[in-house]
């Protein structure tokens, strides 16, 4: 593989790579604002300038400049090499690139940083980007000097509402055009553009339009400064208080990799951020998925109920076991849920087959929605494929089958996992004895005779199999809310009362027992929230 030299380090590259991309791949960061690995090259921020040595035997391209001489108190003529933007310069074998080691580069970065901050309002205290802002980081790394300009900075529009999700502050904007490119290239909806020139330029929405496609939050996500802020996250939390867990989005069957940012003190999830996985979602997530975190706290079932009355978990489990013990296995159905992880479903399946010996295995999940052809899948369940894998070689019967069987009376007792059903318009027949393990209020919770509160995806580790059949591990972010417990634990409790304690105690044992393989990149402890690439 060909290599080039970056600051005395050999960097391998593939043909066609730019310097910054090759360096990024091996983990060397060249400072940049406008470049993003998932977007086209704009080369307008000039932060990634590097000094490239001339080919052997060729003179360097030098420029005549005037440099300030503090001793003489005057400008003196000097020569400096012509610097190149690393994001645009393609690599060549044996090329020598100086980044940190070149004084010219360091001075240039400092100058670029100062230029970008010239008209910046420096309102970090009220800016939501503070703490993950490139301007803050790079100011400290590359400038660390006071502002020299004493003129009134240019004033531009503030608090411009771009659409239902995004607010724009032109004074903070450095016009890197990342957001424009996200709209163009990812959402294929070129609704954003730049207007005016020089220090008056700003981002605008196309006349008569709003920023309302399905990837608006990606514009905020890629914004390196606080120009674009998400209405959903505005003023909710300071990012340095947040911790991140590596999770998988459960909004649809795509299974985008995400960070779940939560406040460990209040145990509240505040947002998702996309997590880079080139096999699934590359660098992106859709708005539907990004806002799906709200379901962790909204409309939750937080206490066990028997016959609609709140009760303790112990007595509810007792009651559930009693119901199941009395039931005839032939007329009992177990409904798996595509909303829940492999672990929850595997535990339930074990209970159905080994303890209750029921024949009727059904599956259910959230109703389908419309998908786009980018990331959002029309199947809004994260684990449909996983259930089929678990039940294999047979297949679980569908929710329609369940309704039919319940209507003709061949099902008397039901043990159901999940909150939603595939077809909410058809009510669940009232004649059945229903034990539901639900995370949210919904058809199951409404009809349940015994309702056990299950924890959501953010409250326990879990494995999800996406539409492509890829297993992905999701980490626990917050502690179980209210009286809820992970569904596999509730299943174990019920089994214990029924007299057949399960052979597994910890989640790892469960995963091993049902060979729910962990994904190759096994996540470790939560990492703190940081800026995206």
């Amino acid at each position, binding site marked *: 593989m060909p290599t080039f030299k970056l600051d005395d380090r050999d960097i391998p590259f593939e043909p066609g790579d730019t310097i910054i991309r090759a360096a990024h791949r091996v983990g060397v960061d060249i400072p940049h604002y406008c470049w993003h690995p998932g977007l086209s090259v704009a080369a307008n921020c000039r932060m990634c300038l590097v000094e490239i040595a001339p080919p052997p035997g060729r003179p360097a391209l030098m420029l005549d400049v005037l440099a300030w001489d503090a001793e003489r108190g005057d400008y003196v003529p000097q020569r400096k090499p012509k610097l190149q933007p690393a994001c645009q310069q393609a690599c060549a074998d044996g090329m020598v690139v100086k980044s940190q080691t070149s004084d010219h580069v360091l001075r240039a970065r400092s100058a670029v940083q100062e230029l970008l901050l010239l008209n910046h*309002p420096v*309102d*970090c*205290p*009220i800016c939501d980007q*503070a703490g993950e802002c490139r301007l803050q980081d790079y100011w400290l790394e590359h400038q660390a000097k006071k502002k020299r300009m*004493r*003129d*009134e*900075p240019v*004033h531009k529009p*503030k*608090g*411009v*509402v771009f659409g239902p999700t995004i*607010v724009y*502050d032109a004074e903070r904007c450095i016009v890197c055009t990342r957001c424009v490119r996200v709209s163009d290239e990812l959402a294929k909806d070129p609704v954003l553009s730049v207007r005016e020139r020089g220090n008056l330029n700003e981002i605008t929405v196309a006349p008569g339009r709003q920023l309302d496609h399905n990837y608006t939050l990606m514009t905020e996500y890629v914004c390196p400064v606080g120009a674009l802020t998400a209405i959903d996250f*505005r*003023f*909710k939390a*300071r990012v*340095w*208080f947040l911790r991140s867990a590596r999770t998988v989005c459960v909004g649809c069957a795509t299974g985008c990799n995400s960070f779940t940012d939560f406040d460990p003190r209040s145990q509240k999830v505040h947002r998702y951020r996309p997590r880079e996985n080139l096999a699934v979602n590359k660098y992106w997530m859709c708005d539907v998925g990004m806002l799906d975190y709200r379901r962790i706290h909204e409309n939750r079932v937080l206490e066990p109920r028997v016959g609609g009355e709140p009760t303790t978990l112990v007595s509810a489990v007792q009651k559930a076991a009693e119901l199941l013990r009395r039931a005839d296995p032939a007329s009992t159905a177990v409904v798996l849920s595509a909303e829940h992880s492999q672990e929850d479903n595997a535990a339930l399946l074990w209970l159905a087959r080994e303890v209750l010996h029921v024949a009727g295995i059904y599956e259910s999940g959230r109703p389908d929605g419309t998908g786009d052809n980018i990331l959002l899948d029309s199947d809004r369940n994260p684990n449909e494929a996983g259930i089929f894998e678990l039940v294999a070689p047979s297949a679980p019967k569908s929710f329609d089958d369940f309704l039919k069987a319940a209507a003709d009376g061949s099902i008397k007792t039901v043990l159901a996992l999940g909150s939603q059903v595939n077809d909410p318009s058809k009510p669940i027949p009232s004649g059945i004895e229903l034990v539901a393990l639900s995370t949210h209020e919904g058809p199951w919770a409404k009809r349940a005779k015994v309702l056990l509160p299950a924890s959501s995806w953010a409250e326990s580790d879990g494995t999800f199999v996406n539409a492509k059949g890829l297993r992905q591990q999701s980490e626990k972010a917050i502690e179980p809310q209210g009286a809820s417990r992970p569904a596999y634990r509730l299943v174990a409790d019920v089994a214990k009362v029924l007299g057949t304690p399960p052979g597994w105690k910890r989640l790892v044992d469960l995963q091993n027992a049902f060979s729910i393989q962990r994904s190759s990149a096994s996540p470790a402890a939560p990492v703190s929230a940081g800026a995206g690439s």
Partner: protein
Amino acid sequence: MSQSNQPLGPRKVTGKAVPRPKRGAGVQTYVPEIAKGLAITMRHFFQNTKEMALGQRNDPTIEAIDDGVNTISYPEQRRPYPARFRGVHRLTHREDSSPRCVACLCCSTACPAQCIHIEAGEYPEGDPRRGYERFPKRFVIDELRCVFCGFCVEACPCDAIRMDTGIHAPPYDSRDQFIYERDLLMGFSGRDGSHGTQNPRHEPGEATHPGIDREKH
């Protein structure tokens, strides 16, 4: 290294032998020594009580005394507090007597006791500051938890929180009385009685904005 001329190896420690204190029978049996100590205590007690009762007592702060203790009788007597005394917090006001605080949470980040809780709010529709600036919907300080280190004051970028009230956290009957809410904090004034600050905040565009005025160029 100044000791480079020393040979290698562990440094030789030379010290002076301290004689062990002589502990005679009186000390060993403990009782006579206790009696002596009690006698000293009683002497001080009688002496001080008498002088206090007969009005022969000096001002202990100004006229510190060689024997006896330099103690003042708070709260009858109070030492004058230095200018930088850190008392109970206050929230400074803007001209329109709204809080100067912008709910940036810098103070609660800096707080080592984690006693500050802030909920940020957005200005209502029609306010010119809506969209980019915010204000504290709730600003709560648990004065029982506070260690009065003053980090919050140092951290504040807007000079919105100050500890120059010159007030102690008073003793209360129950813990919830120590929870100071925003309006109470805004009710305190500085020692000069003002609710403002020495370092007023200038909105962009105003003539006093530091972008124009700071160095008088």
